[in-house]
């Protein structure tokens, strides 16, 4: 009887064993990598807007405070997207003929709000609250990245839960206070950092503060920093045992 297969079949059989075992692992790792990559998370991918608004220009070059536009960030869960009137508080006087601002003027005349595209969002089952994070002195850039450097705004972080719980499980690694200004409340600390940056430039900031401003993960595991962080946790009355409970974010 003739052979059923040619000798090459042996190689094919061996290869199929190797691929059969490694392929599922490789596919699993690929899914893991893609779900964490900007392809899925859109981190650092600028998002088109009806008007090419630049945070870099307004917040850094002009030095406008975050709260000028995001008015409710200290008081409410939602930081607030500014209404057209906020834009017009300046743009009724300057750049009144700029074609880029045509949609703003249109919106103002017709009373139809601009449909900004939301850059940062959490799922509907996550009850995120801006005010408490500001009230405990967490810098905007910790979550939102280096906003003052963004021309077209992009996401600074993926907002995946594993990222949230890094801080919720060990807030002492993240809490920070500028010791040269002990007079400021944690809420004031948040915005003072931006004034300090305007005044002294990046080189005038401590290494930790530069991390905050540049939107790097500002975790510090240095014993000194953690001890200080722990002190702040106590001082602010943060109950770490409960901070990572499901119901803190999911009601």
């Amino acid at each position, binding site marked *: 009887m003739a052979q*059923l*297969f040619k000798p090459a079949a*042996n190689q094919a*059989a061996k290869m199929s064993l190797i691929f059969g075992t490694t392929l599922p692992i490789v596919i699993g790792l690929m899914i893991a990598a893609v*779900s*964490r990559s900007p392809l899925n998370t859109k981190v650092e991918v600028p998002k088109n807007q009806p008007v090419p608004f630049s945070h870099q220009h307004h917040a850094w070059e002009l030095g406008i405070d975050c709260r000028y536009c995001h008015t409710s960030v200290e008081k409410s869960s939602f930081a607030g997207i500014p209404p057209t009137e906020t834009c017009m508080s300046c743009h009724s006087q300057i750049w009144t003929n700029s074609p880029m601002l045509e949609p703003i003027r249109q919106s103002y005349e017709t009373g139809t709000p601009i449909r900004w595209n939301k850059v940062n969002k959490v799922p509907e089952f996550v009850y995120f609250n801006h005010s408490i994070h500001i009230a405990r002195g967490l810098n905007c850039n910790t979550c939102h990245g280096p906003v003052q450097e963004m021309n077209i705004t992009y996401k600074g972080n*993926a907002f*995946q*839960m*594993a*990222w*949230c*719980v*890094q801080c919720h499980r060990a807030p002492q690694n993240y809490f920070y206070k500028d010791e040269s200004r002990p007079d400021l409340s944690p809420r004031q600390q948040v915005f003072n950092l931006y004034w300090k940056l305007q005044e002294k430039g990046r080189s005038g900031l401590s290494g930790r503060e530069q991390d905050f401003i540049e939107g790097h993960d500002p975790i510090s595991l240095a014993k000194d920093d953690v001890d200080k962080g722990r002190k702040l946790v106590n001082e602010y009355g943060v109950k770490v045992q409960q901070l990572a409970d499901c119901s803190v974010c999911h009601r």
Partner: protein
Amino acid sequence: MMADKEGLGGHDPLIGGQQTFQSLDNTIASVVQDQKRHSNKPWMATTFIAFIFVNILMVSVGWLVYQGIGIWGNNVPAGWAFDIINFVWWIGIGHAGTLISAILLLLRQQWRNSINRFSEAMTIFAVMCAAMFPLFHTGRPWVAFYWLLPYPNIMGVWPQFRSPLIWDVFAVSTYFTVSLVFWLVGLVPDFGTLRDRAEKVAMKRFWAILAMGWRGSQKHWHRYEQAYLILAGISTPLVLSVHSIVSLDFAVSIVPGWNTAVFPPYFVAGAVFAGFAMVLLLAIPIRAIYGLKDLITMRHIDWCAKIMLTTGLIVFFGYMLEVYYGWYSGEIPETRVMLWRFFGPYKYLYWLLILCNGVIPQLMWSPKARRHIPTVWFVCLVVSLGMWLERFVIIPMSLTINYLPASDRMYYPTLWDFGMFTGTIGFFVFMMFLFVRFLPTINMFEMKDLLHTLSHGKARKVAVGAKGGR
């Protein structure tokens, strides 16, 4: 070669009729290779009816996924009902396969040879049916992956390792994997036989790929034996562990009627009980349809019936202990559950359970009844029903009354509950009949080995140990 009737000291032979290696091959392999043998009415009718139920299953699951698990009858306080009953029932049924293939192999029980392949297939299909229920009970099976399996996910959370439910995931998935590998490894030499017997080149190639280069050399047999024994060693603890862990889903909780230490052994006995009932329930018609009466003999049926009787008695002892614990605990909720079982609105189901699992199996004490095929088949059917009722008694009956009498609610299943349950039965039968048609139902080489051992007496058996060389 005549099978040695004295060799194992029984009245019926393990292999009947005048058999040679050739005739064994012919009897078993022709079921696969001569497809015309399946155009008979029983195969077509059974498969067709089963296929209708497969469709019912698909519709039930489709509607369930679309609409959500609200279409089922379970609701607080009976959060577990048909889904978990059926899960436990199916998992239990699978246990006979593992017991036969692993424990009986290690105990050198030669009578396992003609029923092991068949019951291993049963295990695999039963676990498939079982797994459907918890998976669809999650409501969103497409995300169940990250609820059930521990891996570094993007949420930074892990399943609760202190919960028996996650132990269950490991127990069942290990059980399925090991059973599948065991089954496939055991099939390899038979694939070789089928390849050699096949006439068309395409079929030869097909079996050759499955046989993975099996040439039956001394080396191949040696490695095969080792692999098979190792797998048997791995499977053996699974017989005990899987259903113990399933029982811990209940025993670890504080629900009255569940929180008893007798659950693990009592569940394992129940699993073997139900499993053997299912083996006989399917083996009896299949041996009749395909003329396998010389291979699955009365002796096999007799012994399976004896195991059923034994495990049935253990299970019945478990029922008595449950009642005893209810009284001995001195807890009002525990006593209340027992009285609810005896006299509550579900009392008919409880007493039917006692009839099915406690009373009717006692028929198997009589050697005459064990050899009367319709009686055995009827008892098996009753036991299968009884084991289902047992889970009904344990699960929703205990949940409907709890510590707080104010929150007692009755549980009633809906049509969709029955749809999915009967659907899985259809799926199981459908898969079994496809298996019978397309794969060798009985282990050919082990039967040949058995024939050899029987005809050469005991001297060889001593010399070669557990499974005998070839």
